[in-house]
């Protein structure tokens, strides 16, 4: 056990005691997001789309870079979406250098899943030449400060960044980044909501201590029309079917609020 884990464990009794009464360590309501601040086009000089987003003390940047490449053999007439999450030690003493941790991989994959499965990107419009050449949409989440709930924060930043992304001009096999051929073709705006189950209560948008000390976490992502597009349960605890149904309902509702407020 690392020292940091031991220190974290010391906070568990208080967190669970508060939760018994439905209360959270930072005083929020169970279904309340932390304050969200968005800097659009934060990386306007080098990225095709970008967004810096703060959710409480969680601080990150989503950057979109467009490159070209050959399509996957089984989808010769579709562009490609790639999502990565960099969680460097700059952002938390929890993180370390080296290949992406399982936590970073899961974070990136769940963010990717919602964007992909909501069909937010109209990948059929990202073909340059069928079978030969398509746009690859690279979303990179770069964490600056980690205080829990990277999935919701990262996905909202990514969606915001994608909505502002300009496709560079493409001529004679060359990308001309100074000129744009229009916006990225999008057709949905998925929203991710993550709940932490603490002492049988479910808290939306867990901050670091809640995320790490929770029995279980459930991420639910929904589309503009209120359908589900992705889910992920984490942690060693469990959810009852009725509990999941309730959270699905709440997620769809919260998704609408967030979409209205920020997109």
């Amino acid at each position, binding site marked *: *056990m690392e020292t940091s884990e031991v220190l974290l464990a010391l906070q568990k009794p208080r967190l669970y005691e508060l939760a018994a009464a439905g209360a959270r360590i930072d005083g929020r309501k169970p279904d309340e997001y932390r304050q969200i601040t968005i800097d659009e086009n934060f990386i306007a000089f080098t990225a095709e789309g970008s967004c810096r987003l703060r959710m409480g003390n969680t601080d990150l940047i989503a950057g979109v870079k467009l490159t070209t490449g050959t399509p996957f053999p089984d*989808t010769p007439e579709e562009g490609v979406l790639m999502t990565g999450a960099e969680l460097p030690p700059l952002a938390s003493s929890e993180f370390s250098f080296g290949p992406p941790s399982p936590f970073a*991989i899961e974070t990136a*994959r769940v963010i990717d899943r919602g964007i992909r499965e909501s069909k937010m990107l109209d990948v059929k419009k990202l073909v340059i030449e069928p079978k030969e050449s398509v746009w690859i949409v690279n979303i990179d989440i770069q964490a600056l400060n980690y205080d829990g709930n990277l999935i919701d924060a990262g996905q909202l930043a990514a969606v915001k960044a994608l909505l502002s992304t300009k496709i560079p001009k493409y001529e004679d096999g060359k990308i001309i980044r100074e000129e744009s051929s229009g916006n990225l073709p999008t057709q949905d705006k998925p929203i991710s909501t993550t709940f932490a189950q603490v002492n049988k209560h479910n808290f939306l948008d867990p901050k670091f201590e809640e995320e790490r000390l929770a029995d279980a976490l459930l991420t639910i992502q929904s589309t503009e029309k209120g359908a*589900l597009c992705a889910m992920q*349960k984490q942690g060693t605890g*469990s959810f009852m079917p009725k509990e*999941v*149904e309730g959270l699905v309902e709440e997620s769809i509702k919260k998704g609408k609020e967030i979409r209205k407020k920020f997109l």
Partner: protein
Amino acid sequence: MSSNTDVQLIKNGKRLSGRKLEDLREIKIQPGVLDNADGSCYLEWGNNKVIAAVYGPKEAMPRHTQNPLKAVMNYKYNMAPFSVEDRKRPGPDRRSTEISKISGAALSKVVLLEKFPNMQIDVFVDVLQADAGTRCAALSAASVALADAGIPMTSLIACCAAGKIDNKVVVDLDKPEDNHGQADVPMAVIPRTEEIVLLQMDGHLTADEFKTAMRMAIDGSKKVNEIQIQALKEKYQGELNGD
């Protein structure tokens, strides 16, 4: 899920494989198949073939991973190079890393880890042949392998996916259904209590469709659980009877 949904997967209420919407594929479970492992299980599920091995509990290594309050659960899901149509390069990838993480967490709910402070329990599952639903097959086999290893658990866990094809919610998608389907919901539950210990979803489902899918996956898991129990009984009753 695929963006290509123009393949007709259900005709006259029957799926391409001849199954009804709520039918599982055939499942065979055989515990205790590997000599070196402390516990093991071979499982066939349709054309899926997986093998699970359990080593431990043993001292957790490297030492800084030791937890004085409980054992570390170390789950590794792996696909053999020849287990898929396009040969897979050996070694872990992002997908298997994610599956390993959430599957190990699911097992941690039922294994009495606090009985083994400073130890680790290794659960290795190799997918030998894949036909959609491998994470459910792997975790179902792992649960039996843990039982075969005599590791104390509050319950087996059982797994099953539900999904949507041709706008219908069905259980246990096979490869063609997974390739051309609209949604997939892999789940793992504690059968008796219906507690959900693994849950993922991708694709497109309304809240109502999801409810149906969740129910079908739970019911499917219970059927899987019966086969798990039957397989363990056969092995251990056999042993008691001196077979």
